[in-house]
């Protein structure tokens, strides 16, 4: 079982079909072998005659025949039977006529089982249950329908001279067993109509139908279908689990790789196709990891190569007169800010930092306080305590970027925090020229700057939006009476 998991999906399907076919076949075979066969809907000719004779007597007396096993009807006209009334039928007619003391002309017979020229079963070997012999019927033409005189002296084949009802085996309840072998020479009939003219000229019709008692046979058919269905569903369940389980764990593993490229490689198990896919994902993951490694190395090198000269310049600036030093330090600061924003944007990986519950109010307050410490005009007001789940460094960078932006273009930053339903809404307003409606989306594109004169790489807002969206929120420009108003929403 373990080793066949590696087969292609087509082989799995083929296996399933073969198993399904075999199990369905076994179920049907088992039911046929172990359960009794369908009993034939038969009645012995003598019972048929007795039943009709009794009903005839009752109907003639003006009553309704009370034998519920038969269906009775009285019709004004002779039934339109097409069956030739000679041969074995003639024998039955003669017997009935004798019994009812009627002219055989006033008796009509019809059998359902008229196919070709066979219709009567006769038991040949009483020892073998259910082995019926079909006897040819209608050797003669149906030209002598009403020839009663010829039929009268015909010998009845229906009741063997040796027939003795006492000889029928009796079941435990005193009833004759349902499938007791009939004595030799007794004709068994099924689906038989008998009609005879009553004394008032109407016709009494008796129908011996199917053996409706034996619904067990239908139960057996239902059992066959049901059991097959049950076995097949079990098979289908087992198979789909077998096939789906490796696919599901494959999906989980791929998901994990998507979130964290350093996660364990996808296990190469399951059907051949899935193993191939797992191998491809693992190769991709290895490339991803090396790419990330390359990126980290590149960024570190860029940072080192750009900041080392800046540090040299900064140290050299200590030895120049203060007025010049301040200018140099300012320039160094601007270049450094540019380098920092490039590196921050390039290494931005929202999945890297763990998410924790944090107080957004305390975070915004601390950002404002740090800016005030550095001599900038940043004010915060709003909710006392508003807890969100997020990445502390990422969110700090988000808000710092927006606040820095406000300070750069608007001179001040007024930060507010409000709870709006399931979201926390932070608004950062400034006193600058604002952003026209046409440019409000463009500023979120990397490297887009509205004024060339200002420093900065144009990466602050794109990075802020990236972080907010990774948290399920957003950063947009909103309408303001004056200046720009940046609205940051985060799920609270």
């Amino acid at each position, binding site marked *: 079982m373990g080793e066949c998991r590696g087969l292609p999906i087509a082989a799995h399907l083929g296996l399933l079909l073969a198993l399904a076919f075999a199990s369905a076949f076994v179920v049907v075979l088992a039911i046929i072998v172990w359960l009794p066969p369908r009993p034939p809907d038969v009645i012995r000719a003598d019972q048929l005659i007795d039943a009709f004779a009794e009903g005839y007597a009752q109907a003639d007396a003006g009553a309704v025949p009370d034998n519920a096993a038969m269906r009775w009807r009285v019709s004004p006209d002779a039934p339109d039977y097409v069956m030739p009334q000679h041969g074995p039928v003639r024998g039955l007619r003669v017997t009935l006529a004798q019994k009812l003391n009627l002219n055989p002309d006033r008796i009509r017979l019809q059998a359902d089982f008229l196919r070709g020229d066979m219709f009567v079963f006769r038991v040949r070997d009483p020892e073998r249950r259910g082995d019926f012999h079909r006897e040819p019927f209608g050797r003669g033409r149906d030209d002598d329908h009403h020839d009663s005189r010829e039929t009268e002296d015909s010998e009845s084949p229906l009741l063997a001279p040796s027939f003795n009802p006492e000889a029928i085996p009796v079941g435990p309840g005193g009833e004759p067993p349902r499938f007791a072998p009939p004595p030799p020479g007794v004709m068994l009939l099924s689906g038989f109509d008998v009609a005879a003219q009553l004394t008032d000229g109407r016709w009494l019709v008796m129908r011996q139908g199917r053996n409706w008692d034996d619904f067990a046979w239908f139960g057996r058919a239902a059992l066959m279908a049901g059991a097959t269905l049950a076995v097949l569903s079990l098979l289908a369940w087992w198979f789909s689990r077998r096939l789906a389980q490796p696919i599901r764990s494959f999906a989980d593993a791929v998901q994990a790789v998507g979130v964290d490229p350093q996660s364990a490689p996808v296990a190469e198990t399951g059907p051949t196709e899935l193993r191939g896919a797992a191998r491809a994902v693992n190769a991709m993951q290895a490339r991803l990891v090396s790419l990330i490694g390359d990126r980290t190395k590149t960024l570190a090198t860029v940072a080192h190569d750009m900041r080392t000269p800046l*540090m040299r310049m900064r140290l050299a600036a200590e030895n120049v007169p203060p007025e010049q030093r301040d200018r140099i330090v300012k320039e160094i600061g601007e270049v450094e800010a540019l380098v920092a924003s490039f590196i921050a944007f390039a*290494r931005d990986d929202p999945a890297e930092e763990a998410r924790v519950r*944090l107080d957004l109010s*305390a975070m915004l307050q601390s950002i404002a*306080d740090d800016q005030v*410490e550095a001599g900038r005009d940043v004010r915060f007001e709003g909710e006392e305590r508003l807890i969100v789940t997020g990445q502390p460094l990422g969110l700090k960078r988000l808000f710092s970027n927006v606040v820095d932006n406000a300070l750069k273009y608007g001179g001040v930053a007024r930060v507010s925090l409000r709870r709006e339903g399931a979201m926390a809404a932070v608004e950062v307003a400034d006193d600058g020229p604002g952003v026209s409606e046409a440019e409000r989306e463009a500023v979120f594109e990397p490297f887009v700057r509205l004024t060339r004169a200002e420093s900065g790489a144009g990466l602050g807002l794109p990075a802020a939006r990236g972080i907010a969206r990774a948290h399920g929120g957003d950063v947009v420009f909103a309408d303001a009476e004056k200046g720009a108003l940046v609205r940051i929403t985060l799920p609270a």
Partner: protein
Amino acid sequence: MMAESFSPARVLIVDDDGDIRDGLVQVFERAGFCARSAANVPAMEKALAEHGADLIVLDLMMPGEDGLSACRRLAGKGGPPIIMLSALGDDADRIVGLEIGADDYLAKPCNPRELVARARAVLRRGRDASADVSSEARRFAGYRLDVARRELIDPDGVLIALSTGEFRLLRAFVEHPQRVLSREQLLDLAFANDSDVFDRAVDVQVSRLRRKLERPGQSEIIRTVRGEGYLFTPKPSA
């Protein structure tokens, strides 16, 4: 300027860039330190063995063994305090540096005077025997202060962001608990008072910090001792 500098503190500057080495040596000597320099980790080991050092200013990215692994090794065997000076200035880089045992972390290019101020602060902390909290987390009154990450986690597990001033003040309190600290002491411990950037009224910072530590039904964490200063009441544990 500093009362404790009877003999000048020995600082060892480790950087692969010659200009930066010379510049920093100059800056530290001007500030009254005895400064030496080394171009790489083996040279640093040699200088440490020959002359010793009270403080190491360590560059992160150097050819050969880099600053991080040297820092981890030195911190592991209880060497002198280390200030990492790195071209990687991200918060995440700073946290990594502090978590592996650096006492402070500055990004290049930095203000040389701020570096000197930080060096003084680190030395001052290092001399206080009770204050060995360089990079580990401390717990008090249900709070947890992660020094490396500069994170305060409240008793509900919620991260309370601190401003730089608040963090430094809280760290000074946690390092000197259950002791009345005067405003001057706090200024000295928390804000390295020779830096104009951090020279702010202690009272403002204390009241801000109090507001962040305030919880209903909780006893006062920072108590005002009239005419003397402030007292941090809980006893922190590691």
